[in-house]
């Protein structure tokens, strides 16, 4: 129907137009003008709306981008920390094979009254070490290291709380920790460069001095590194003797200075003092002037004062330790002990004064000659000193041995990654008079779990 009417209009409209007057035409023009302007306005409005819509959609897009970025930020894990809310747990697995010519129980000549950690022969599961550490709260960090001995049993090697929240370069540590004197003392066995500790550490510190106590360190606000530290402790670690007594049983003071020379060299040097009281410290199998078979047991009570010097210097071409590097380190300790010695606690029991100054030093160089491979050479020496023995014991106790114990050690190790290390070590040990020992060791050290940063 519509089609027809449209056709009709189309047919007749031209004729009608012809018939229209000028007035009509003007009216029609006016109407068209009106329509036009109307549409133009509308079109403008529409264009405006379109622009607005476009703009808002762009805005929406950019907010979406922003939101996405924020989501990415939010979904990203928190800044690296030692295992977020779970403490960092690390386990060190170590073992050795030792081939010795002499019985490891024999102490260095002149050091029968000192410690003798000795060595293990044959296949031996070294100390496995379980470490747990984490921030306790914003102020404190806790560290515990348990040594699992191969024979069974667990001993607390370290268990301390540390706080650097005091600011001003102060660092507080309390609990059981390795004393901060010297260079090697604070380092755990798995980072030692040789299978064993230097003779000076073995004889004068029973490998390592651990204390129950408090340590305060202050980093002096200078451009170069100057650190001053002090400790008071129970005195349980050798040369101290464990005690049940108020107050402090031992005290340590140390200072470390260090800096870089260019980007390739860096060094640290230190001095330390240690003081403790030994009470009824019993030593078995001490040789005497009478030549008692198997030696005698002596007991010593008195003061023990030790002074030490330490130096470490590291070098790497371009300061890049990955390829090749060299480390030279040396330490010297001198201990003065004076007090009363009871000779032969089992039978004679003669007590008189006794004073001796003993010392020991070592110098070692470790060279990483290619990535993952290192070799090291160490020389150590002890001086048993000449004891001033009280008149009553002059005929019993050996005052001077006239022998200088020494040892030369060579090692090669291979570390496929920073978590595993295999080592071969040979040594000629002349620490015992006329008992030269050619030693061979094989060792593995593996670390699992959290692996903390290593100290310099």
């Amino acid at each position, binding site marked *: 129907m519509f089609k027809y009417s449209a056709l009709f209009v189309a047919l007749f409209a031209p004729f009608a137009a012809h018939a229209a007057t000028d007035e009509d035409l003007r009216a029609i023009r006016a109407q068209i003008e009106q329509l036009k302007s109307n549409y133009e306005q509308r079109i403008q409005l529409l264009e405006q709306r379109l622009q607005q819509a476009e703009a808002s959609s762009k805005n929406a897009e950019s907010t979406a981008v922003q939101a996405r970025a924020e989501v990415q930020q939010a979904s990203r894990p928190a800044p690296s920390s*030692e295992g977020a809310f779970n403490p960092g747990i690390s386990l060190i697995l170590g073992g050795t094979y030792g081939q010795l010519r002499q019985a490891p129980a024999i102490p260095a000549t002149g050091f029968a009254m000192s410690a003798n950690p000795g060595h293990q022969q044959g296949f031996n599961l070294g100390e496995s070490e379980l470490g747990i550490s984490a921030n306790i709260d914003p102020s404190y960090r806790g560290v515990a290291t348990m040594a699992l001995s191969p024979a069974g049993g667990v001993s607390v090697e370290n268990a301390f709380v540390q706080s650097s929240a005091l600011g001003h370069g102060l*660092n507080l540590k309390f609990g059981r920790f390795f004393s901060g004197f010297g260079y090697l003392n604070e380092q755990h066995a798995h980072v030692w460069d040789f299978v064993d500790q230097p003779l000076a550490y073995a004889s004068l510190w029973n490998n390592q001095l651990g204390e129950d106590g408090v340590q305060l360190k202050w980093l002096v606000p200078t451009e170069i*590194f100057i650190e001053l530290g002090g400790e008071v402790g129970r005195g349980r670690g050798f040369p101290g003797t464990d005690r049940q007594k108020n107050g402090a049983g031992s005290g340590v003071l140390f200072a470390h200075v260090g800096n870089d020379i260019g980007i390739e060299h*860096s060094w640290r040097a230190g001095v330390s003092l240690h003081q403790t009281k030994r009470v009824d410290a019993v030593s078995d199998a001490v040789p005497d002037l009478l030549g008692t078979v198997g030696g005698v047991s002596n007991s010593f009570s008195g003061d023990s004062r030790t002074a030490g010097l330490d130096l470490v210097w590291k070098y790497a071409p371009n*300061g890049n330790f990955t*390829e090749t590097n060299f480390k030279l380190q040396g330490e010297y300790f001198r201990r003065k002990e004076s007090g009363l010695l009871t000779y032969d606690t089992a039978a004679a029991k003669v007590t008189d004064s006794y004073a001796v100054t003993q010392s020991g030093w070592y110098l070692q160089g470790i060279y990483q000659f290619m990535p993952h491979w290192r070799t090291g050479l160490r020389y150590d020496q002890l001086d048993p000193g000449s004891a001033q023995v009280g008149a009553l014991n002059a005929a019993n106790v050996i005052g001077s041995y006239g022998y200088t114990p020494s040892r030369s050690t060579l090692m090669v190790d291979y570390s496929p990654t920073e978590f595993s290390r295999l080592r071969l070590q040979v040594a000629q040990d002349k620490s015992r008079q006329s008992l030269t020992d050619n030693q061979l060791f094989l060792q593995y050290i593996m670390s699992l779990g959290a692996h903390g*940063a290593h100290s310099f």
Partner: protein
Amino acid sequence: MQKILYAFLLLFISGNTYAAINIFACEPEWVALAQELAADKADIYSATTALQDAHLIQARPSLIAKARHAQLLVCTGAELEVGWLPLILRESGNPDIVPGRPGNFEAARSVTMLEVPTRLDRGEGDVHAEGNPHIQTSATNFLPIAQALSARLAELDPVNAAFYRSRLQDFTQRWQAAIARWEKQAAPLKGQPIVMQHKAFPYLSAWLGLKEVATLEPKPGMEPSVAHLSKVLEQLQRQPAKMVVRAAYQNPKPSEWIAERAHISAVVLPFSVGGTDGAKDLFGLFDDTIARLLAGLNH
């Protein structure tokens, strides 16, 4: 004796006479960025150089001494410095720069991380839980990092906030122009197959559209063995690459071994500011990187 005493006193005082904000930057690229954003308002110390592997830095006494004075620590984060920085922070006795404080800035927190491992296992080598930390190899990453760092500077040093804002604006403009230029220059690199010595360039590859076809390290952080290199060589004979790429601090031998046998060019990239003579600043870093890649392509 008196002279020594005065010298000592001077040492003490010198530690405290900083008018400018004291920045400890873990890597040279952050030194350069901080210089762009803070200019003379900052005193910046660089803990490492481009010729050192930032994973394996000794916790040197000098670093501890510098960290003690720092008001702002600018590091990559994402566990790159996990082997040495935590110890520096602990020993420095400076609670202002520990993680979580405004004085601790981790650049990796401002960018989208790539290669975030789905499986965390040391059997996979030296992988980082938060993703590949070598974020400085893409120029585009510097825009959000600059923005975040500038905001951090303004937060720590509000007196100069307007200055930092204007420096950021200036840097952003110049950097955006440079990115456009670099992308145009690097157009021929798009889709080109490359071999990497260490997985150190995912951000660069993603940015310029390079196609990483092989890695010389069998696992991240493990030294390339001859056995693994032979395997890579075999792969390259089937599926050729244009060049083998390594960072300036890395051993040249594995790259050269492959380059010689696969008849491709070995390209050394600055990796950070100071890695090559051309990489004198941030702009030079990318000028030189792209120039070296293009030279490798036309070899």
